[in-house]
């Protein structure tokens, strides 16, 4: 397959750009703990932040902090113990198709072809005429470069293609918020870069509010408008860094002095956090990981 996978100019032919809704998400003093009463594990403590409409907020943190828990809370898979999460002023109480999650490992249903995975949501809910679903699914699959692979089963697609199919599966629902939980984890370096670039173009095209969780600082800086750096457990926000790099983003920008500054700042914090946990629990894995990140 040689066709370029560059996204085309607009979201849907004949659909005005305003048709793409955007959400503002507010997290107000959100806390979450797990475990039995006598040994509560506090995962998230008092997180207050706003995901601004049309912005991409990237979240990085030391490994094992509550990044995925944060995703689960915003997605509505879990409920916060205290505090609340508002989407356009309305409290989130459960999962819904206004928020689409792209999961850490692929969550395409393996028994459906790429095409059937994409049409699965809208056809299930029946909130879009079938003919339109069909047209839109084909258009999106074409757009993510899977036009000729649409009848393949997910396990028959490469990692990068699975992620792209997932993006199509998410986008067809026109979500107000896209939640990405380490979406490019497990891809090889080359594919990962291609996906980061592809995803940036996709985001820049219609600037759908996005929560992007990752453990890679460079990836976060590359895609983000704002970078939220989390602390160790219990997770709080250590720092919010505004990423003032021009769009469309290119990889060359990552070697600019600004990008380097952001990276240093974030690494500094992460290193501090890792050291804390190292001193506290003697967890060498965290230390080594943070150390190697600082060096690399």
């Amino acid at each position, binding site marked *: 397959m040689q066709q370029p996978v560059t996204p085309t100019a607009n979201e849907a032919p004949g659909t005005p750009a305003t048709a793409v809704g955007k959400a503002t998400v507010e997290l107000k003093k959100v806390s979450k703990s797990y475990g039995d009463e006598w040994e509560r594990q506090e995962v998230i403590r008092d997180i207050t932040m706003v995901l601004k409409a049309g912005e991409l907020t990237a979240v990085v943190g030391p490994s094992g902090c509550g990044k995925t828990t944060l995703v689960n809370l915003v997605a509505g898979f879990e409920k916060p113990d205290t505090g609340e999460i508002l989407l356009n002023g309305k409290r989130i109480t459960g999962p819904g198709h206004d928020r689409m*999650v792209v999961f850490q490992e692929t969550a395409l*249903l393996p028994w459906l072809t790429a095409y059937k995975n994409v049409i699965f949501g809208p056809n299930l809910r029946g909130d879009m005429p079938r003919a339109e679903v069909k047209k839109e699914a084909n258009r999106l699959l074409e757009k993510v470069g899977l036009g000729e692979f649409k009848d393949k089963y997910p396990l028959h697609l490469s990692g990068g293609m699975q992620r792209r199919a997932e993006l199509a599966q998410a986008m067809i629902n026109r979500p107000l918020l896209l939640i990405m939980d380490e979406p490019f984890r497990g891809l090889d370096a080359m594919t990962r870069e291609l996906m980061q670039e592809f995803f940036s173009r996709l985001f820049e095209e219609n600037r759908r509010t996005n929560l992007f969780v990752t453990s890679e600082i460079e990836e976060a800086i590359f895609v983000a408008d704002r970078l939220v750096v989390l602390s160790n457990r219990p997770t709080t926000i250590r720092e919010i860094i505004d990423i003032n790099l021009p769009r469309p983003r290119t990889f060359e920008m990552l070697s600019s002095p600004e990008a380097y500054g952001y990276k240093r700042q974030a690494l500094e914090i992460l290193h501090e956090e890792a050291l804390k946990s190292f001193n506290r629990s003697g967890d060498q894995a965290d230390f080594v990981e943070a150390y190697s990140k600082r060096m690399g």
Partner: protein
Amino acid sequence: MSERVADTSGMDTVQPPPTGLRLAWYRARRSVKTPTPYLMVFGVALWLVTYSLLTEILKVPRFEKIPGPIEVITEWLSPDPAWGMSLFTEAYLINIYVSCRRILIAFGIATGIGVPLGLFMGWSKRFRDYSFPILETLRPIPILAWVPLAIIMFSGFETPILFLATLASLFVTTLNTLLGVDSIDESYFRAAGCLGSKPRHVFWHVVLPGAMPFIFTGLQISVGVAWFSLVAAEMISGDYGLGYMIMDSYMINTYVSMVMAMITLGFVGWATSAMVRAVGNRMMQWRIRALALEGR
């Protein structure tokens, strides 16, 4: 953005795969180039020669009473068998037919009850809480322990036999289906919930297809268990059937027929197992393709 090549080169560039007879021919041609068929033939030959040496040629003590392979095969192919049973006698064919029909009924009932039961138990926590202790208590009771009860409960020859075979098969199918539902990755449920699935959608689109691999593994075991308990039941309270043929031949000292029935059981059991596997492979195209791909 630079020129990019999708991470999928090499797929779908060759001619369409052969189907039907051409595919079988292609596979046969490929397999004669591997050691597999030769090793299989050699293994069978080695076994037959050893068997023949022990029983017919050297007449080793303790083995001399057992009919050897030459004797059994000659008898099996004889239109006028010395001991009354061969491929050309009605009695032998009726025995096979009766056993197969019983398996079909028992396995059919067990699958028809066991699969839905297992799916519900896996899907509904409440239903599982009700039914799991009962299943776990009844399941370890050896099927032979049910024989007297079956004879008391049901009259005649046929129903107790069917009951025993069904019961044994049912436990295996139910448990495997239940484990199959448990094995489904949580992220598929989340993805489905995200896309707006109602519980019934989750049941049909996630629970059922997701449990399929375990269900079919279970069915292969369960058809074997059905044969086991069928033969045991036929030996105790049968008239007709391969188990009955074994016991009857033993009673009247026609050991050739006894061995013939045993070997027939082996082949028929293998055939039913292969049929279940074939149906499973047909229903799980998504999985075969993945496995085939991994094997490259």
